[in-house]
Structure formats: structure tokens, C-alpha cells
């Protein structure tokens, strides 16, 4: 690859990296805000339910995760994360081009083993009737998890971009050893 092409690619990569860093900073600020909101809601719940009523003593002895991470590899060495909630089903899609009528009863549904045992909502660890502040805390931390996956993807992209940048800089040095 000629030096001018390498330089152009370097510039493009650098701009992308700077954009990713800016996006990372923005998402971090939002994540930190969500987590702080969550702590405040937990404190309110603790005030309503009692000091020892919201903590490790209430953790269940058996937990199933409601939230999982799916990873995908966009390019070689570049991992992307996506948060998937258990029990989320994609809606049935009916294209506009379909000429046939939809059957009212719908297509035959294949049995889904995981839907028979939905993971228990962690809110249930704290009692049947929980204060609204505890639900708010759960919502804040759930938002935080989505942001965490985005931030982790961005961090991976930045690391990957950094390695690509180094490789290109090395190639450029080999092509132009005398240039500064």
C-alpha cells in the first residue's frame, strides 16, 4: 500500500477513534447518572422497608439470570455485545406483499422449553408488595445494563482501533523511514 493511501487510512481511523472516544464519554456520563439514580432509589426503598430489608440478606439461594449477553464479531478481533432479556419474543412479521390471508389461529407454535420456566423477578426476593422506589431502582439498573453493553462494545472498538492504528503507523515507518 502506498504511503499516501496509508496516511489517508490513518486519518480516517484516527477520526473514527476520536468519535468513539467522544461517544464513550457521553454514554459513561449517562451510565453514571443511571447508577446514581438507582442508589438513591435503593436508599428510599431502604427507608421505607427498613435498613436491613434491602441487601445481601435478601438474595435468593437460587438465581437464574433474566439478562444475557449475546456477542457477535463484526470484524476480526472486534467483539460487539448486545443485552437480551429472557422471555422476549420477536413479534410475528407479516409482510405487505403477502397475498394470502392470515389464519386467525395463527401458525402452529413450536414448544419453547425456556418459556415454561421463566426466571424469577428479583423484586420478589424483597416481598410481595414492594415500594415503588424499589421498582424505580430496578428500572435504573436495567437501563444501566443496556448502557454497559454499549460501553463495552465501544471500549472493544477503541482497543481494536488502537491496535489497527499502531499497525498502520509501523507500516508507514517502514515505507518512509526518514520521515518524521
Amino acid at each position, binding site marked *: 500500500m502506498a504511503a499516501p493511501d496509508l496516511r489517508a487510512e490513518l486519518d480516517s481511523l484516527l477520526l473514527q477513534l476520536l468519535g468513539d472516544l467522544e461517544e464513550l464519554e457521553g454514554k*459513561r456520563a449517562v451510565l453514571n447518572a443511571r447508577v446514581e439514580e*438507582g*442508589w438513591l432509589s*435503593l436508599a428510599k426503598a431502604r427507608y421505607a422497608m427498613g435498613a436491613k430489608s434491602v441487601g445481601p440478606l435478601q438474595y435468593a439461594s*437460587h*438465581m437464574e439470570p433474566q439478562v444475557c449477553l449475546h456477542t457477535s464479531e463484526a470484524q476480526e478481533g*472486534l467483539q460487539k455485545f448486545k443485552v437480551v432479556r429472557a422471555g422476549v419474543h420477536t413479534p410475528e412479521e407479516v409482510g405487505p406483499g403477502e397475498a394470502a390471508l392470515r389464519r386467525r389461529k395463527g401458525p402452529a407454535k413450536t414448544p419453547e422449553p425456556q418459556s415454561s420456566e421463566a426466571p424469577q423477578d428479583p423484586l420478589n426476593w424483597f416481598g410481595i408488595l414492594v415500594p415503588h422506589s424499589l421498582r424505580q431502582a430496578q428500572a435504573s439498573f436495567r437501563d444501566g445494563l443496556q448502557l454497559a453493553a454499549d*460501553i463495552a462494545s465501544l471500549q472493544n472498538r477503541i482497543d481494536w482501533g488502537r491496535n489497527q492504528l499502531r499497525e498502520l503507523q509501523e507500516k508507514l515507518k517502514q515505507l518512509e523511514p526518514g520521515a518524521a
Partner: protein
Amino acid sequence: MAGRGKLIAVIGDEDTVTGFLLGGIGELNKNRHPNFLVVEKDTTINEIEDTFRSLGSLLGSVVEAKPNEHDPPLWDEIDSTQFLHRDDIGIILINQYIAEMVRHALDAHQHSIPAVLEIPSKEHPYDAAKDSILRRARGMFTAEDLR
């Protein structure tokens, strides 16, 4: 476990862990060790490090401990509690003040999975200058490159 996706682990103070468990990331059953660690005043740095280490070693980086230096049952116990050794963890959330205690282990972890995310705690707000990822990004250029 195949097809279920990866887990999110959390190492933090009581409120941080309780909050994220409320969010639905917790896993705990008879056969598996938990994917969370509540760090309290009496939690030792070795315990935090043992729980955290393994994420990098899964992909072949250096593991300091050797099997023949431990009793076999103890080795198994350490192995199963370490988030880094588990191939089912995608992200580790860790309070930044706890990350500072095990900074050497974090800096040694160079792999993309699991990703390590530093988050603030109630007493210690987030400081971008201490974040491992941002410190690496800051060191991208030398003075020579900028001429």
C-alpha cells in the same frame, strides 16, 4: 449453557451489587459459583483478585499459579470462583475504587472478552484518569507521531 448467551458479572459494594442483581444479572445454583462478589470492609485484596483473575487467562495469557503448587481441591475451588477463568462471562462490572486495589490485574487483562467496565461507587465518583481503557487510549501517540 450453550445458546444461553454470556453473563454479566459484578464486583462491587453492597448497593452496586444489589442494584445490578435487581436488574436481573445474578446466577447462583448448587453447581455454579455466583457471578457476583459483594466487597465489604473485611474483604481482602487477595479475595478480590482471586475472584477477578482468569478472564485473561482463558485465552492463554500467563497464569501465575501452577496446579502442582496447590492441593488439588484448593486449585479447583480457586478455578471455579475466578471470573476470568469462566468462559460464560462477557462483561465484568467493577467499582473503580475496587479496581484500583487490583489495578495490576486489570492492566494485565488485554483480551476483549470479558470486557471490564469501571463504574463509580457512592463514596468514590468516577475518575476518567484512572480508567485502564482510557489510560491506554491516552498513550496512543508519542511526541514523535505528532510532528
